[in-house]
């Protein structure tokens, strides 16, 4: 069995988030709802957030997708809960850098998101990992322009 690379990609913490997703669902009276698709593969995600005074009080996700995209969404919800929106967005920037193999600044208080670092060895899967972060960015942008 030659799945060493696979083990690096699908680390147990990732599979744990995939099989036991955190913050799965919808916040019925959330302040922000955003949908995002990955048209190349059919993955889709819906984020609902409750943002009070620029702080993410609560966030949930639902969607369909591979283990990487769903685990990443689960990790993201943990990372950004209780954070200021601009901090949440900058985490997304650091996450993107990590995906691109650039220097990044991810700290322990951001939960498990660094477990996805191995995805940068699988270029075809980077979009899976960044889907939820892109959705967050899109949602914040849209609410700013309203």
């Amino acid at each position: 069995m030659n799945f060493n690379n696979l083990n690096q990609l699908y680390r147990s913490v990732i599979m744990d988030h995939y099989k036991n997703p955190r913050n799965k669902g919808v916040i019925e009276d959330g302040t922000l709802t955003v949908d995002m698709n990955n048209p190349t593969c059919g993955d889709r995600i819906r984020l609902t957030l409750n943002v009070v005074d620029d702080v993410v009080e609560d966030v949930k996700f639902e969607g369909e997708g591979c283990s990487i995209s769903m685990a990443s969404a689960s990790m993201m919800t943990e990372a950004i809960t209780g954070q200021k929106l601009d901090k949440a967005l900058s985490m997304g920037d650091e996450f993107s850098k990590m995906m691109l193999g650039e220097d990044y600044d991810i700290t322990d208080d951001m939960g498990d998101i660094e477990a996805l670092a191995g995805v940068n060895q699988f270029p075809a899967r980077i979009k899976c990992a960044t889907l939820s972060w892109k959705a967050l960015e899109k949602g914040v942008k849209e609410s700013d322009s309203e």
Partner: protein
Amino acid sequence: MNAIDIRKDFPILDQKVNGKDLIYFDTSATSQTPAKVIEAMNDYYREYNSNVHRGVHTLGTKATDGYEQTRMKVKNFINAKRYEEIVFTRGTTAAINLVARSFGDMIVGADDEIVVTEMEHHANIVPWQQLARRTGAKLVFIPMEADGTITLESVESVVSERTKIVAITHVSNVLGTINDIKEIAKIAHRNDAYISVDGAQAVPHMTVDVQDLDVDFYAFSGHKMLGPTGIGVLYGKSELLDKMEPIEYGGDMIDFVDLRESTWTDLPVKFEAGTPMIAEAIGLSAAIDYITEIGPEAILDYEQELVNYAYGRMSEIEGIEIYGPKERAGLITFNLDGVHPHDLATALDTEGIAVRAGHHCAQPLMKWLDVSSTARASFYVYNTREEIDEFIESLKRTKEFFSYEF
């Protein structure tokens, strides 16, 4: 037909991917290219690269001959009646768009119906949706059976005197369903409708005779039949092509240009504005030679042998779901319980096996199947039973890997 010998003609297959011998099971997306096709294009660029239909110099004449001889070869390959009926396009997508735009806009009106199926590739749905939007016509779908086939009774029930065009695929790129185009064409014609066929998944794998099928339009791509990307073919009956207006204008396609108006040249160049895909046409010619040498019947037989073997072996795997009918073209679309198709494709890739994962440009069909995406293994002349055995073992390992409690 000997796949082991054939493999030697495909330099790309002789490589390791992630430390394992490459197993290429993604021909339905694009086929691999034999050395003879690469060399034909190489020779063109090294020896006679020149524009066509223009200069009187030697290289220009040679390039024009190469380009136009390909047209003659395509005509013979699909048994078109006339040379003028072969229009070169960028690919199947461009060919279907040409029919929908030029022919569609000419004959479809607000009270008419355009008939398609739910098994179509986006390339054979979206152009017709847009035609319906432009004209106010209604888009109607032929219902599918539970196994992903279409019965002639269903076709009869949908096609009527309101129908102007039936647009249908010859072979489904997801289900592998082979549609009975000859009979469907008869039904269309009995109702005074026209039939336009997406042949991208058929021409590379079986004998296609457009006169015998009696289709009005038939589109296919070079890169799925051992040729290069960037070239495709639209076959159209000459009496229809003759009446159609071009949708692109420019060099080559004109007869006479005045400051304020112009006239068009004759078929088929009327539909080929600008410098065409010369190297690609020359590559396509070599690809047709290659297929002809093996023989389309031998190709079909061999693929049937492979797909039946793969179907049997895959069916043994617990938790696998295979979509589409048992009788099928050389591809198998499936899902493995508990493993998302992208994870599956990544796992297989780490073992050098290339399969497609996703919606296969057929989102309405995914909806019909009630899945968000699927994995697909597709076979061609260079694949072997031994590769299928490797694939089966890898599938089993993948299933085991993802069934761990992490």
